[in-house]
């Protein structure tokens, strides 16, 4: 399939995607889908047959009544009565059976598709995949609720529910046509007008989500935010109540009004057309039929059959269920698109003949050569030619101002983003020739926004090395090293305590406690074979005592002796303990050496360190914020 540029999976077209969803239903659960479809078919045919049966039954009555309720005419009535009763009794079970099967099918399909979405999100090796707006759009369509109305499974289960009356209507047209081709044509006209017109109106209705997105989604976001506990204090201090109210109410309705006008205009037009066709054609037809029937030109049975067929045609009812079917069909397209993009990304990332790395690599060094990185869509490089050699087993601190590129360098080091220029060499092997997933597992990162899993404390540590997760002793050891064991033992439930306040019996931890858990997870990854440990601001939520102790303890840890450790931090009291310090400034390495060397060199590091140190210098009056703006003055004072 050729790649299509920037699709809009949110745009609704009837039938579009429905076919794909149906196909997916058949491949996911062939028996269940066939059963549901058969039930739907029976439900479509049953009303037509029942209508004809009652027409014949009631039509045969006058003759039987006249005959005094006995004889051939009465026998015919009884035979028809038995047929109608059998049909009615049989028809009782089908809707319940159909509902049960359809619900099952919907769940099965939604589950399978949600799994496919997860796989598709994990297939691409590199993070750039998620920068693609098409990927973001496709994910946002299925992310909110993997069981609800937006999913193809729900759509298919709804589709089999709503298709019945539509097919019955077509049956009505057929009945009309069997009496007269002209009647059939008239019936078909009304049927098509109803079906197409109302579906079109419904799509216009669904436009709520697409056309008014610009006002609808911010309103929804603000409503959720306003009810959340997180921002509760700021919302109150800033007195945002009436502003938010205006956004979720008045502004939202003002935007909706435009849509309403379009909807109203269409619906009024359609109503007029329906009144003229259904009403006009119906009145003409019934005028003719009743005259014929009342004068005996037309049998009562025929009259009733035509009458019932007309009722079936106008019972083609369009409602919210049809809308759900269309919504879900749209998300089917999004899922397939997501899988296509993931497969394409995977193909791009595939290394044709991967070079094997030693399981202990890096044994010598990691080398950056002229490393450049530019984010897709950006107009400048974040990394502008980084040259750096990190010997294996070194403790390296990376410092620099906000935005200097420290965290980006860490993502390149860990193989999450391929450089857009230059190379990364591990023991002399270019990372571009190594299977990226293998290298990624060699690097353990404690990032600033590490994940808080809604799982047990045990899983939150153990997921650092999933293949070792059964090893309780190793998990315990990692927690002890990270200073998390005490926190966990004090939890109600200990290791089994669920760390999510939204789950029953779940517990929320403070930022400092979470940071210990995150560190334990990263150390457990080292136990599982990671050879490089990156710590990105690991002490930001810890208090003074904890901060002062943490890095010193980590450096001394015997299990980390051959591990390469990269510390990213603003806190120079921690940084100075590293054997080597590298200063990154605007995407390039500007200084490199030990603390003593860099202070002696009197460059950027010296001035930054002196600046922080001077704030603690009791002889200087640098505590006065008036002077502290001038960095160079302070550097002199500090040195």
């Amino acid at each position, binding site marked *: 399939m050729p790649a299509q540029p920037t699709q809009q999976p949110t745009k609704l077209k009837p039938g579009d995607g429905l076919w794909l969803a149906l196909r997916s239903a058949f491949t996911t659960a062939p028996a269940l889908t066939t059963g549901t479809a058969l039930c739907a078919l029976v439900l479509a045919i049953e009303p037509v047959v029942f209508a004809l049966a*009652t027409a014949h039954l009631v039509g045969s009555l006058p003759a039987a009544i006249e005959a005094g309720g006995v004889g051939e005419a009465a026998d015919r009535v009884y035979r028809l009565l038995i047929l109608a009763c059998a049909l009615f009794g049989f028809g009782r079970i089908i809707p319940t059976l159909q509902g049960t099967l359809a619900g099952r099918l919907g769940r099965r399909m939604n589950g399978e598709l949600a799994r496919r979405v997860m796989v598709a999100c994990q297939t691409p090796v590199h993070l750039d995949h998620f920068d693609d707006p098409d990927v973001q759009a496709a994910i946002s369509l299925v992310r909110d609720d993997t069981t609800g109305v937006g999913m193809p499974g729900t759509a298919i289960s709804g589709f089999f529910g709503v298709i019945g009356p539509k097919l019955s209507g077509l049956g009505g047209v057929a009945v009309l046509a069997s009496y007269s081709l002209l009647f059939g044509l008239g019936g078909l006209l009304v049927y098509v007008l109803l079906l197409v017109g109302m579906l079109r109106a419904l799509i216009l209705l669904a436009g709520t989500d697409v056309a008014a997105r610009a006002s609808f989604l911010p309103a929804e976001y603000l409503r959720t935010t306003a009810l959340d506990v997180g921002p509760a204090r700021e919302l109150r201090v800033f007195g945002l109540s009436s502003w938010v109210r205006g956004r979720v109410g008045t502004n939202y309705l003002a935007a909706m009004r435009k849509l309403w006008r379009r909807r109203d205009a269409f619906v009024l037009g359609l109503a007029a057309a329906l009144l003229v066709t259904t009403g006009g054609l119906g009145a003409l037809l019934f005028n003719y039929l009743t005259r014929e029937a009342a004068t005996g030109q037309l049998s009562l049975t025929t009259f009733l059959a035509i009458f019932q067929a007309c009722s079936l045609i106008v019972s083609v009812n369009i409602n919210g269920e049809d809308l759900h079917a269309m919504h879900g069909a749209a998300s089917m397209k999004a899922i397939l698109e997501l899988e296509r993009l993931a497969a394409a990304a995977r193909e791009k990332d595939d290394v044709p003949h991967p070079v094997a790395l030693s399981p202990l690599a890096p044994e010598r060094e990691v080398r950056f050569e002229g490393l450049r990185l530019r984010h897709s869509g950006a107009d400048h490089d974040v990394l502008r030619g980084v040259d750096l050699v990190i010997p294996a087993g070194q403790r390296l601190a990376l410092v620099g101002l906000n935005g200097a590129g420290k965290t980006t360098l860490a993502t390149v080091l860990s193989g999450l983003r391929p450089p857009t220029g230059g190379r990364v060499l591990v023991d002399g092997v270019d990372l571009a020739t190594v299977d990226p997933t293998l290298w990624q597992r060699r690097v353990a990162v404690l990032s600033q926004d590490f994940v808080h899993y809604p799982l047990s404390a045990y899983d939150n540590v153990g997921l650092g090395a999933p293949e070792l997760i059964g090893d309780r002793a190793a998990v315990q050891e990692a927690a002890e090293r990270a200073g998390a064991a005490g926190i966990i033992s004090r939890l109600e439930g200990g290791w089994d305590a669920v760390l999510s306040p939204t789950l029953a019996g779940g517990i929320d931890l403070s930022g400092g406690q979470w940071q210990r858990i995150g560190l334990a997870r990263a150390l457990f990854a080292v136990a599982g074979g990671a050879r490089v440990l990156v710590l990105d601001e690991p002490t930001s939520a810890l208090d003074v005592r904890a901060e002062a102790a943490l890095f010193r303890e980590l450096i001394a840890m015997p299990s980390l002796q051959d591990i390469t450790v990269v510390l990213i931090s603003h806190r120079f009291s921690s940084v100075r303990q590293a054997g080597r310090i590298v200063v990154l400034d605007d995407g390039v390495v500007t200084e490199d050496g030990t603390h003593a060397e860099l202070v002696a060199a009197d460059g950027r590091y010296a001035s930054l360190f002196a600046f922080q140190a001077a704030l603690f210098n009791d002889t200087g009056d640098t505590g006065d914020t008036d002077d502290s703006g001038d960095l160079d003055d302070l550097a002199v004072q500090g040195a």
Partner: protein
Amino acid sequence: MRKGWNALRYSVGLVARVGRWRAAVWALSLILLQNVGLLGALISASLIDAIVERNEPRAVVLGISMALLLASVQVVLCLLLSFQPKVEEVVLARFDEELVATTLALPAHLHAAPEVQDRLEQLRQQRSAPHNLTYAALAFVSLAANLIVSVVLLGSFSLILLVLPLFGLPLIYARGKQTRSFINLQQEIAQDRRLALGLFRTSTSAAQADEVRLFGMGPTLISRWQTVRVRADHRADVVGVQTAVPVAAAEVFFGLGFIGALTLIVRQALRGEATTGDVLLLTSLAASLTRLLGGLAGISGWLGTVMGTVQRYLWLRERLVQHRAELTAEGELVPAPTALREGIRLVGVTHTYAGAERPALADVDLHLPAGATVALVGENGAGKSTLTALLLGLLDPSEGHVQVDDLPLRQIDPVAWNDATSVVLQDHAKFELVTQETVGIGLVPRIDDRPLVQAAVSRAAADSVVNDLPEGLDSPLGTSYGQGGRDLSGGQWQRLAVARGLMRETPLLLVMDEPTAALDAQAESELFSSYSAAARRAAGATGGITVLVSHRFSTVRSADLIVVLDQGRVVEQGNHGQLMALGGLYAELYDLQASGYR
């Protein structure tokens, strides 16, 4: 019962705000549609009789009326396609407004209380409840009316036919049980569903994609998810079958009753005791009983659920009324002062959170002088955040009181006090709006004042953040609802939060809680130098107080007054020199941090 009635009255009131005649038209068309089948059955019966009696004029009139009835149903249905969602959308928007207003009028600690959170969680998921309650009530009334008329017509023909509704009783029971089972099921698997959704989101999130790859946890996450998901889906499958079997059986049972009734009617007709039209009418009446009974059973289950949801909101509103009454119990509220003369004083303040064993703050007496910069220092859990919340009026102390000059804070109108204060929090909100709004909501009346917002950004040393954005202050921020904004780093978000806190130029009280945790030293110093000039201006103009919470002693030391908290108590206070001379906790922590720089 009374509560249910209140919920219904509230919901109908909300629907009426769509416009009286609109609401009436909406209600009438719904009732009409529910009863049109009955009307149609009556007309067709007379029509058949007229045909059998060869009464041509009567047959033609009835035939044309029938055609027009069918057409008008289509027209009403078609109009409702636009009208129905409009009513629903308006009611949704109005209900959202009320929900937000009520929630935000509650004090922050009540908002966070579990009993409020539980209710908000349910309300968030069932925002259509007031609309649905009105709709369900209307449907219930019209179905009941339809049922009564049908039963009366059946009974007037033959008393034996009155037995037929009894055949529907098992159906009512089975359907009601089915509805209840599904509601219970939702509650039973809610936990699994939430967990599954959490794992699903982690596996598909761009922000968490790095960790999933580095730790190679993808397959583990998927298998965990699958276990939970399969368990929940399996439960739903089982309940689906368990409840379907009785419903199907009850349907068949009713079918037997119907077959009996039909046979009875036909026999009577053959005996000449009923016309052909009667047979048609009674057949359709009897057949519609199953729809009516099943519908009533389903709707009563639904009615109970949505009524419960609306009641949850009314509970919230009552809680607010109660809170307001508590506020004004000690006399009328007064406006906030325009300037501070002496300062803010805490007198014998103790605060214990609900359910906590020991107080977060114990017996605190403290004077924050007007115009001063006050630093709060202490280890995690010392009570710093509780103290700032008390000062901001977000919490009411369980003992003692806060005094603004000589006025108790409790007597000051909370809204007015909010207007007089400002805040920068460590766990600040990431408002994903247009940048100008993200900053500007710090002072809503001036949100569109570009120079003012720009000035606040400069005071917060956040110019570089804004300049990096593709469209400056007009850039949308964040990606969580597909607004296509930039996702900022922690430090960048924090600087915008500072700018927001500095929108108010001369607040009486500004609380800055770790405003620089994610910033580098240079950015921190830029912020404090630009900010302290502003603070001094505020102090000069209104005697405004700045309260700074920080772990960074380099910043803390320059404060006019440093307050050291330990386990909820004030253990030391004074300026940097005094506290160092004292040689206590402050001096110890300061030396610990300073030693890293020697």
